[in-house]
């Protein structure tokens, strides 16, 4: 069972890891690198709790065989706060009570980061579509949508 050495740049730091055949990006992040913000929800790519940024695109990490993305850049929730200070999305989630059990939160925030990087002033519909792959059982989604729109306003205020 030949394993391969895979290099990933995760949250701006280079890592070498041993990938057994079929090891997913999610397993590599959580088990090899101890980055446990991305969650194991369904292993089928249908719940969104494992969404991370792969070369700046939101993807379900449980669907990516890590050997196929050797050399890629990954960002997880652990790499969002710059210098220990929560960013606008994180702050908006906190202030807006947009999290209860927290299981969906990592995936939601990463989906939101991908949206705002691409579209700094999203409409409500844009936000709804951006998180359409993320299941939440607790909040009924409204506080999350509101938080993402709030984050966009905060970020626009900061760069204005």
């Amino acid at each position: 069972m030949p394993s391969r050495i895979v290099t990933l740049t995760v949250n701006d730091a280079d890592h070498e890891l041993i990938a057994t055949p079929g090891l997913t990006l999610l397993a590599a992040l959580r088990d090899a690198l101890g980055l446990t913000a991305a969650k194991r929800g369904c292993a089928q790519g249908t719940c969104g709790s494992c969404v991370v940024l792969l070369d700046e695109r939101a993807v379900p990490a449980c669907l990516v065989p890590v050997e196929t993305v050797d050399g890629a850049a990954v960002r997880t929730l652990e790499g969002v706060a710059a210098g220990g200070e929560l960013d606008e999305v994180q702050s908006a989630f906190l202030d807006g009570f947009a999290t209860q059990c927290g299981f969906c939160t990592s995936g939601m925030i990463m989906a939101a980061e991908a949206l705002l990087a691409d579209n700094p002033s999203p409409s409500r519909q844009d936000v709804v579509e951006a998180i359409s792959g993320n299941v939440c059982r607790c909040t009924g989604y409204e506080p999350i949508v509101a938080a993402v729109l709030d984050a966009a306003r905060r970020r626009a205020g900061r760069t204005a």
Partner: protein
Amino acid sequence: MARLFGRGYAAVNYPTGMNLGGDPSQALIHATTTGTFVISLSSVDLGQGLKTVVAQCAAETLGLPIENILVDTADTDTGPHCMGTFASRGTHRIGNAVIMAATEARAVLLDVAAEELEVDAADLETDGTGYVKLKGSEQRKIHITDLAMAAHFTHGRTISGRGVYMKDKSEVVPETGEMDPDSCQAHACTVAEVEVDDETGIVEVLAMYSVYEVGRALNPAMATQQVEGGAWMGISHALFETTEPYYPVRDHGPRDFTEYLMPGAGDIPVQHSVLLERPAATGPFGAKGIGEMTANSPIPAIANAIFDACGVRLEHMPFTPERVLRGIDELHAG
């Protein structure tokens, strides 16, 4: 071919906690030497916000800022016993236990402060910003960080307290059937407004109005979250979720979160929620439980709204587009 508007409502009463053989929870509070008050529990915060609510109860009782409270929870090996967080019991049982522990700790706090300030404990008050002070004076005061240090290193005292709240088991009076299994009941009413597409049977919930009487909303934002998150779950159960779409035939059971249907952010109604307060005699600051009940009344409210919209009376969940269409067909045939 039309979109038919309908409105329906339902009401619910919901008990707090369990009867069983008694329903207890315990809490311990102790101050560190820097004035942090640690609440030790083995109760679980599953995201409903128990840690926040008990921190509020402790801060309010102790008369200290909430920043001085640290909730240490969910180690069932070491923590004081809790029956668990279910049956909508958490705020009520654990909140009461924490208040009892904080009450005892406050008495010690004032006692030690009285020695430090050389006054009577009865003449002391807390100002909510971290000071214990002589009533009517601005100079005779001591900050909790200094007080905690003094308690430990000068006076050899622990500023701590113990708490337990148990709902006694209520037995039935055999002659009359009377009993009192609930500590209190919360009450709610939900109004649902829907639109039924009479060509596809699709039901869309346009708006949901919820009123909940919860005794005391210790944290109104979180209580509203519980109402609205629960309303979403009620809608999901009413219109979408099933593990056996062709019951009693077991074919085509959903195998992942795409086949197991739940409404997404694009399918949610506008929600309007109001909290009413009629404090419960047994509740922590009058609070009642508000947990499971929030998924209940939305379901019959939606069923009634569908009936109002198109005359179809559905009694089996989920109220799928097919069931609505078949109901409309039956009405036209009859």
